[in-house]
């Protein structure tokens, strides 16, 4: 009777160890595979500064669309994409707005008559400073980081405006 009982617990233990081994193998193979698969989501693209013109060219108070080319990494390809930044001077300070609507990513353009940015997709509307004045956008237009080098204006990544500005 005792022998049968100890035999049973021995088999029970063997079953647990065996299940454990297969679990271990699954984890040991699964974790590297999954982290490999998700890794591109965590590759940070390099912050590149792009020269878009001479500082003294931008004295306009209404946003001026400046087209520029940007090298982007697309997986194993490198591509050049053209994009627009809306540059203007506000109280003497240069500002470069990104034209990407903060709602669903369509491209806005400046309407000189109404002095506002309008999004063609869902009717988002921003004033010329990029603040939301109508429609669904949740946040103001992003502003590019800016720096000056030898009289030239360089723009970096567009960043969210701090909430204080709106």
């Amino acid at each position, binding site marked *: 009777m005792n022998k049968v009982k100890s035999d049973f617990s021995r*088999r029970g233990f*063997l*079953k647990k*160890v*065996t299940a454990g*081994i*297969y679990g*271990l*193998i699954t984890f*040991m*193979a699964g974790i*590297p*595979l999954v*982290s*490999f*698969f998700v*890794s*591109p989501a*965590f*590759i940070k693209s390099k912050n590149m500064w792009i020269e878009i013109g001479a500082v003294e060219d931008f004295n306009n108070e209404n946003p001026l669309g400046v087209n520029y080319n940007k090298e982007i990494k697309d*997986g*194993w*390809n490198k591509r050049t994409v053209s994009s627009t930044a809306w540059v203007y001077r506000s109280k003497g300070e240069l500002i470069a707005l990104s034209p990407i609507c903060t709602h669903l990513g369509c491209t806005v353009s400046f309407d000189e008559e109404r002095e506002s940015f309008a999004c063609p997709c869902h009717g988002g509307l921003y004033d010329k400073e990029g603040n939301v004045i109508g429609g669904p956008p949740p946040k103001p237009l992003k502003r590019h980081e800016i720096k000056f080098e030898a009289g030239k204006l360089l723009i970096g990544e567009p960043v969210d405006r701090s909430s204080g500005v709106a």
Partner: protein
Amino acid sequence: MFNSVINWLDERLHLREGFKELLDEPLPEGVGWTHVFGSISLFLFVLQAATGIFLSMFYAPTPEAAHLSVSYVQNELFLGSFIRGLHHWGSSFFVVFTVIHLLRTFIYSAYKYPRELTWVFGVILFNLVLAFGLTGYLLPWDQKAYWATVVTLNIAGTAPFLGDIIQKILQGGDVIGSVTLTHFYSLHVIVLPLITIGAVAIHVFLQKRQGITPPFKSPDEEVKFDSRFWPDQLFKDGVAILLIFLILSGFAMLFGAPLEKLADPTDTSYVPKPEWYFLSMYQLQKLFPGNLELIGTIIIPTIGVLALLLLPFYDRNRSRKLKDRKLALTLMAIGLMTVGGLTVMGAADDSSGKLTAVVETAEEEEPSRLQPAELSGRYLYQNESCMNCHNIGGNHGEGANDLLQTSGEKSIIWLKEHFSNPSLAQPERNVEQASLKLDQIIDLKSFYFRLSTPQRDKLLTVTEDILYSANLFSSYKCGACHKIDDPEPGFGPNLAGVTLKHDRDYIYDHFLDPQKYEPNSIMPKFDWLPKKELNALTDFMYYFEE
């Protein structure tokens, strides 16, 4: 919670009963550690499928993008080289363990009545494993991939009657290229996996249906069943699988997966060699030259496969005892030794001897004087970023890669690739791209090849001034018109001995306005050069005096 879900399902589907049938199989005595190889093979199939699926998410099957995307996986993705390594070495392990499984089955007589069909599907699966290896080999689209596939497809082409058309169907037209790659890709990731899953299912179903062969027992002997598939055998399988997985991971981590430079169909110097598990066939085909080639490429391999496939039907000896099967075991040993011997011969046989001969004849033809391109190449070696990764015999650079160790061995195309994008030719390292002009690449190439000649020491002791001048000479393309040791006439006068004809002032002023001295000269004025460079170029003429 978990139990109640199981109970809910079981009430409807009677799953427990099914699993009991599948897992609670009683095993005859003597079954144990020698019976783990089928499970290992199945595990390797699942692992190849898993790594393959994730690799396919980052792979583009076109000749333009394939190599780039593999290089991207290798160099830029987290654990990319490890996952590639698992898949690459996994295929070798797969071959090894299916062969061991097959041999074990043979030794234990498990292919005999009533398990003939299990054996037949096993042999089919073994051939599918080889087909996976063959089709997967092309996908990285590097030199090795391309040239091995050229040979394989041409072997298919030697088959009688339909060979030519089979080759064209496989490669998808007259040339090996885009369509070949998409064909092989589809075969590798869709067609072969589907067939394999079906064959595995039948193979395993047959085994479960008929049970394990009692080891070394005659069919009429009484058999004692002393263990169960779950958990006894699955425990042993699990331990073995874990061990193999650890070893495989070690291979993947230590050696990664090779990625040669981009396939170059115009390269005539590349000597293709197949993966080790095809070396025996590669060697076999060399034993039958000329008209007899067909014997090595098609006839013997076909006979071999048929002999394996039909084994249970012509081996009518019912006994499973080793002492009754001396002939079968002897034939197996002969077969193994033949394949093993051919593999070793194939591995040992390389054509490096021929390549050395080529280099030696090239040396004899080299002019003995160091040429401006070679000197300029050394200047570039020192002033571009070469020295970060390279050294020359322990000096001339901080890097770990000694140029003398490969000197003369790398092909011109490899070098060109390496100079224009260092990480492309050596994907295991990620080197920042140098922006070299074509002329500079040619200079570096000349320098590299000169390092493998007896003039090496002279090249490495030339003064910095001469190197600087030589680089100017090269970058202003003086050599395009002026030859030095080349007997062929150039557009301009040969510069050898020019300092014997003219004095230094003449040479210096001649740069400023050639037409002043030679009214018919077509040489452009170099009066725009800085004085320092003019002086250096003038001094350089004295180098040709020797």
